[in-house]
């Protein structure tokens, strides 16, 4: 058993930490404050291959693995959780399902553009009445000759405004419930497809979360992703992978908050000495770091299992559950250790605490993760 990174991963970590520190961190507060999608950062990431880390070289990707990808989301999120989720949704929720379920033509058409970052990807499953209960899809795809006619809407879609290609889900046979859902690939600019309301969010405020609207969208049959009526399985499998990305985001937020707090407690003086000298501070830091390191082990284990192509659904659920709850707890403590300053926007821990909350909600709430984990124990 070996917990150390490979030589390539060591080199990769050196690069991504440096990139996050120099290119991403300086924009984080502004992106949050202005609710601005950091498109210039996406362009920089695209240039050096961050938008296509686990995509094979034959499709224009970097040919890396999921451990490297999780390290990227972690390090980006440690300084800016918005940037972390942009990469995560793009990679795990759009490129990955096309990679895993697409025809050769679909892979050739979409993956090189996604991997190079020329196109940004998004994913549309959630609807106003179909969140955790994803089976309650109301968007429909009606067969019409060589096409499907799509009607309905999707909400809370990360990257929506800036994406060029979307993997979406619709009912192709309403009578069959989850067995009547199919997945489709839809491009920006398809007639009848528009972007609706942009959400005003508590955290990850730069990630351009919007509604997708489909009004009599005519989609050729070649845009069906995977087999007809097999969309629910594709969605669930895609979310398994996505959970590793979100767990890595939560892990990064927690680590970022620890980094800020360690610096602060050494500088901040009360009662004539730095607050790092108080045992309460030391014990809080020890707990924060231990739980964050445990999150990291769970994330890397799940990512490694995905790389080894062995079942990883439960591992993904566990790392997502634990890392998300740790991020919430650690950022809460980080704000507390910063005192009144931590409650202001002068210090990044305030933003980190707001960013952390979403990791307990999206791509499967903590409650859903508990369902997945316990169902596997009791089967």
């Amino acid at each position, binding site marked *: 058993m070996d917990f150390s990174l490979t030589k*390539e991963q060591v080199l990769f970590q050196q690069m991504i930490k440096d990139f996050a520190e120099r290119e991403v961190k300086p924009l984080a507060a502004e992106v949050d404050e202005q609710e601005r999608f950091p498109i210039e950062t996406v362009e920089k990431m695209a240039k050096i291959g961050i938008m296509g880390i686990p995509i094979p070289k034959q499709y224009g990707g970097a040919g890396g693995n999921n451990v490297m990808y999780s390290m990227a989301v972690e390090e980006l999120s440690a300084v800016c959780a918005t940037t972390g989720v942009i990469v995560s949704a793009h990679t795990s929720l759009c490129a990955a399902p096309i990679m895993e379920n697409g025809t050769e033509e679909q892979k050739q058409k979409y993956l090189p553009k996604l991997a190079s970052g020329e196109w940004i990807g998004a994913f549309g499953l959630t609807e106003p009445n179909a969140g955790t209960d994803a089976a309650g899809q109301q968007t429909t795809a009606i067969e019409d000759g060589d096409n499907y006619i799509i009607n309905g809407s999707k909400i809370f879609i990360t990257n929506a405004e800036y994406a060029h290609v979307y993997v979406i889900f619709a009912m192709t046979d309403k009578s069959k419930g989850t067995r009547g859902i199919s997945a489709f690939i839809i491009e920006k600019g398809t007639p009848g497809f528009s972007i609706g309301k942009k959400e005003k969010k508590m955290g990850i405020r730069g990630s351009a979360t919007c509604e997708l609207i489909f009004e009599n969208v005519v989609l050729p049959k070649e845009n069906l992703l995977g087999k007809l009526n097999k969309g629910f399985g594709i969605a669930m499998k895609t979310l398994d992978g996505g959970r590793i990305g979100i767990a890595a985001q939560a892990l990064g937020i927690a680590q970022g908050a620890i980094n800020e707090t360690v610096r602060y407690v050494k500088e901040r003086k009360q009662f004539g000495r730095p607050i790092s000298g108080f045992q309460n501070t030391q014990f809080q830091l020890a707990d924060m770091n231990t739980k964050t390191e445990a999150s990291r082990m769970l994330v890397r284990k799940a990512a490694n299992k995905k790389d080894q192509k062995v079942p990883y659904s439960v591992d993904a659920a566990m790392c997502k559950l634990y890392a998300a709850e740790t991020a919430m707890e650690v950022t809460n403590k980080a704000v507390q250790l910063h005192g009144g300053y931590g409650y202001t926007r002068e210090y990044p821990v305030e933003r980190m605490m707001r960013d952390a909350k979403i990791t307990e909600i999206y791509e499967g709430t903590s409650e859903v993760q508990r369902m997945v984990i316990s169902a596997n124990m009791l089967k």
Partner: protein
Amino acid sequence: MDTTCRVLTIPIKKEMKIVVCIKQVPDTTEIKIDPKTGTLIRDGVPSIMNPDDKSGLEMALQLKDEQGAHVTVITMGPPQADLILREAFAMGVDRAIHLTDRKFAGADTLATSHALAGALRKIEFDLLITGRQAIDGDTAQVGPQIAEHLDLPQVSYLEDLKFDGDKTFTMKRHIEEGYQMLEVEAPCVVTVLSSANTPRYMNVGGIVDAYQKEVEVWGFNEIEVDEKNLGLKGSPTSVHKAFARGLKPAGELYEVETDEAVGIIIKKLKEKFILN
């Protein structure tokens, strides 16, 4: 019947060959020095590619991007210096050479430049780039010494360099009062300042491949050099004393009128018994 044949010759432009010398250095100016031995304590200090060298490498890679070039990096150092050669692969170089041999150990700048020159005699190049100086020694001697050993023209403190596509480089050299513009013919040696450019990041795909590529490891037997010029024997420099400067406490800042300031200074000097 005679057959005449017209031969159309199209000159094939030779691809420019660039070699960049790089060095692995400790990543901090806060290096601690062992007070007993006077040597650097490297434990726990991460190692990086020397910043001036990295800018030199970026200059080479920009020439490669713009005009096409074959770029080789070379380093002399212990086995762990392999890391910066992998980094160079991930940035886009074509070839990497690692000079490592017990005979090179303990080298000062002169012995280092002899070893590097010995290796460079085995490599064809039009342009040799080194960083101005390394942050762990700040001597700025190795680049110019290599040029002397190889009897090549040298231009130090480079900010910019352009190539005419044939054999002439136009260079912008930083001097104290401003800049000098020079034209130099290949082959030549330049030393580059870190202010010349912002080095690129490693490419993710390049990182994935970095350890699939071969780093050529060269020892004494692979290079052309007189052994007496190498290692400790070839190093005339002896370190008289190395010491870490003690930390100064944080200063106090007063924004007051001159008369009051004089009063404060006198009071402080008396407190420290410097004045009676």
